[in-house]
């Protein structure tokens, strides 16, 4: 289908973009890679009056090393994240998850910030962002603020972003030397996750010293499998210990039911996939 008519503007600075967003009011939408927004527009599920294209703002793009964290610009594409050596060294989990997103065409256009701002519960980058304790840097008329990932995802497709705010960057604390794996379960390769598990572990002396586990599509927002994390810490990285911890994967989740999976099956998948994800992350 054809989107309803809209005005279009492509500012070159964040300040201009924020001002344009405020000026255009309620009906304005930011467009980044367009890989989620354009289908919505084409199906006329949304008809914004103005699209503010943030794809031409240089300061929003790229990956910086800021000591204890990586700062990833919002319009950095999935493809760039997959290829970036800093991400590989310090946030391997993010690369692992990004590798499973869609297909090369989509990964060349779709952006990291767009995926997070879109907040699709089946989106693959939310759980890693949550698991890695990332912080979201937001910029609005009143300036900049930083929100923890745990506070950013509010509900199904809903975030802490205010109407006049842009997501400008994501601060990902370095997880240098951590093992990581993203275990995605879907029916065909280009599809979204039915359930997926993001796991990162730090092993010291054969024992799991720290563990981070995030779940995709197990609730309206990405969730941390805190019971699993707690059960893992201090355990030897053995299949038995991992399996025992993974049995808690669905605790406290509230997955939806759809044609691909009912609630019970999603909960079962969460346990199986968590075990697999941690096993792969620990390399046992």
């Amino acid at each position, binding site marked *: 289908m054809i989107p309803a*008519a809209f005005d279009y503007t492509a500012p070159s600075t964040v300040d201009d973009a924020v001002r344009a967003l405020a000026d255009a009011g309620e009906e304005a939408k930011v467009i980044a890679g367009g890989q989620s927004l354009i289908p919505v527009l084409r*199906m*006329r599920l949304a008809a914004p009056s103005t699209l503010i294209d943030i794809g031409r703002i240089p300061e929003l793009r790229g990956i910086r090393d800021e000591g204890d964290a990586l700062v990833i610009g919002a319009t950095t594409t999935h493809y760039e994240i997959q290829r970036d050596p800093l991400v590989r060294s310090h946030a391997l989990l993010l690369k692992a998850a990004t590798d499973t997103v869609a297909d090369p065409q989509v990964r060349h256009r779709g952006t990291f910030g767009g995926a997070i701002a879109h907040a*699709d519960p089946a989106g693959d980058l939310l759980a890693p962002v949550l698991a890695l304790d990332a912080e979201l840097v937001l910029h609005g008329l009143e300036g900049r603020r930083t929100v923890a990932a745990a506070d950013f995802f509010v509900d199904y497709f809903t975030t802490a972003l205010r109407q006049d705010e842009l997501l400008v960057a994501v601060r990902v604390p370095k997880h240098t030397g951590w093992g990581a794996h993203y275990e995605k379960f879907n029916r065909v390769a280009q599809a*979204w996750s039915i359930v997926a598990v993001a796991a990162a572990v730090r092993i010291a002396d054969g024992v799991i010293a720290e563990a981070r586990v995030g779940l995709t599509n197990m609730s309206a927002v990405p969730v941390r499998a805190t019971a699993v994390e707690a059960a893992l810490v201090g355990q030897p990285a053995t299949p038995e210990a991992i399996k025992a911890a993974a049995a808690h994967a669905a605790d406290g989740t509230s997955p939806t039911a759809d*044609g*691909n*999976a009912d609630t019970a099956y999603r909960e079962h*998948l969460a346990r199986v996939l968590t075990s697999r994800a941690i096993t792969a992350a620990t390399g046992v």
Partner: protein
Amino acid sequence: MTATVEPEVGKARLRKEDARLITGRTRWTDNLTVPGLLHLAFLRSPVAHARITAIDVEAARRKPGVIAVFTGRDLAEAQGSLPCAWPVTADQKAPPAPSLAVDQVNFAGEAVAVVVARGKAQAHDALEAIDVDYEDLPVVLDLAAAVADGADLVHPDLGTNKSAHWVFDSAEAGTGSDVEQAIAEAEVLVERTYRQQRLIPAFMEPRSVLVDPTGEQTTVWSATQIPHILRLMLALTTGTPEHKLRVIAPDVGGGFGGKLQVTPEEVVALVVATRLGKPVKWTESRSESLLSAHHGRDQLQKLTLAARRDGTVTGLKVELLADMGAYLRLVTPGVPILGAFMFNAIYKFPAYRFECTNVFTTKTPTDAYRGAGRPEATCAIERLMDELAAELGRDPIELREQNWIKHDEFPFTTVCGLEYDTGNYEAATAKAKEMFGYDQLRAEQRERRERGDTVQLGIGTSTFTEMCGLAPSRVLGSLSYGAGGWEHAAVRMLPSGKVEVVTGSSAHGQGHETAWSQIVADQLGVPFEDIEVLHGDTQSSPRGLDTYGSRSLTVGAMAVLKAGEKVIRKARRIAAHMMECAEDDLEFTAGKFTVKGTERATAITDVALAVFAAHDLPDGVEPSLDSEATFDPDNFSFPHGTHLCAVDVDTETGFVKIRKYVCVDDVGVVVNPIIVEGQVHGGLAQGLAQALYEEAVHDESGTLTTGTLADYLIPSAVDLPHFDTDRTETPATSNQLGVKGVGEAGTIASTPAVVNAVVDAVRHFGVNDIQMPCTPMRVWTAINGGPTDAGGLGTEAGGGLGSIDTSGGAA
């Protein structure tokens, strides 16, 4: 010496049409434009069953760029009723089928109004300004419920949801014995109910139609498989004189039966263009296509197979409910009936009964989809043969062999009365088993089962045949089909020695231009490159019955050969005159007429030039070599093959991964092995997709919940295994070239091979069926003792693109 010329038939030529089709730099209907073109957009019903109590189009009429808005009422008379060419029984019930709904909608997606605007975007914008009041009627979704007493009715005026009841009984037909007796006397009975889920053809190029009424003839360009049938049907439906219509199918990007249709949009485009006197175009979006273009399959099959303990099959009873959807489209009622002759497949059933009830529901109409009736039949019988083998503790291939027609028993008249001309099931099966490593895989399966591996190996077999090359006209007549099954062709010799082949077949990706050129190059002895194949335009190829049912090579190319023979016959007379000899003294090889026993020769291209000049022709000979012919086949052709599939089933998640797929097909003589390979691969992909991925799902209100490609899961190359394909070659005797047909073989054969493999992998958990598509949840649920059809209707969206409509999106 000419004798050393390598024959074109059999050569693995790259296709002539590939460059333009693959790059898309060609004339698709949507690429075309004409001066003053207006655009159409259709408003579609969001509800499955309702009375339209009011439509207000005034606001839409006032929208920018809008030229006109029409409702079903406005066009009621002009649009007529969409044609159904196949009344399967004399008392078949059918409702009127308006292109734009008049007063009542009967499926979600049915068109209720059309906007005509200067721009496509303007037309779409105006749709939102149309206000329709719907008064809901009860939806009719479930086949079994639809035929129960007191069921809610789709079309109350018909008094029933049953459109027709069609029966074939071998005892009544005198082609076999009584199935009830066979069942009564059976030592073993296998009784099953299978569901052939609803599928969506999902061709790559969306449907598109452009109508230009400004010339003396009105020209209709359409992304259709059937330009010839469309011309006639548009004339009959709208009352436009047939000779005032020209239909062109430019390059068409796939159809799979989905464009074997006379669509509401084609009729409306013609009616609106005629009424306004202006050219109009419509091209659908993908979601419009998934929702409103006809669907395929959708049957509930109750099956009873009778056998002796020694494994000999003694009878087969088939009771079908076939979902027509809300209306009968072009061949809707005939699709399940085509399957009637295929349930017995390659086996020697002495007794057979087939009963089919065609049922109306409040869903998108069904119609032909690759295989049309035959995949459903093949899937059922091949599943049953595996179940019988399991019941008897026999190897499924060995059990099949016990029951199939042996190669020395051909020609063989089946329990349905069809005569299978040739076949060699032993040869194809032996080759397939060898390539597959059947015995080794069985050994591995035993080992892994004993070990309790969490990933279980399953092996599935499908030894299929199909009837293709639709069709002998007399057979179609006996099945009450509204047309014949012949095909037409013409061969034109141009003065410069080039050749134009005109064919009534209408390629939409098959590669006819290449294949026909190869055939004619051999026949006339002219270079492959010197042949141009013209098709898909009722002006340049005035007669034809188009392309479907694997008919083009077996029927269409035969007409080409017949026309070529006439060219040679005419040229021989003139060549004899030119060389001053008797016609009988000439032999024609490699493009030359040679006087027997001499070196004296004249090329057919020289004859063509002489004919063009016409200075010196024999008395009474017309100055033309051009010839045409119409070919009507005597029989179907019966390709067959053995497909073997190995799957790894992850018992912890239910995920199925195809590990190995081997198929040995016998499609008779092969004109171009690359084209055959391509047809097999594409066919396999679609057959596998039915087994594992695709299903059109409606929720309890009748809304299609798989309305985007994010929910209607079409596998891509990554999801598909490597295919090990090979062939045996048993020439058909029913045509001159010995060819069979290959367009539908892969689709027909592969579905049961995969499902058999999945069930085989988990049979030891007590599973004897899993409904298609075998989704991970279904497989996992079945392993864990649950139902075989887990999943299906989603109540809530689970995220991802497909769910954005329920969430309000990112808005």
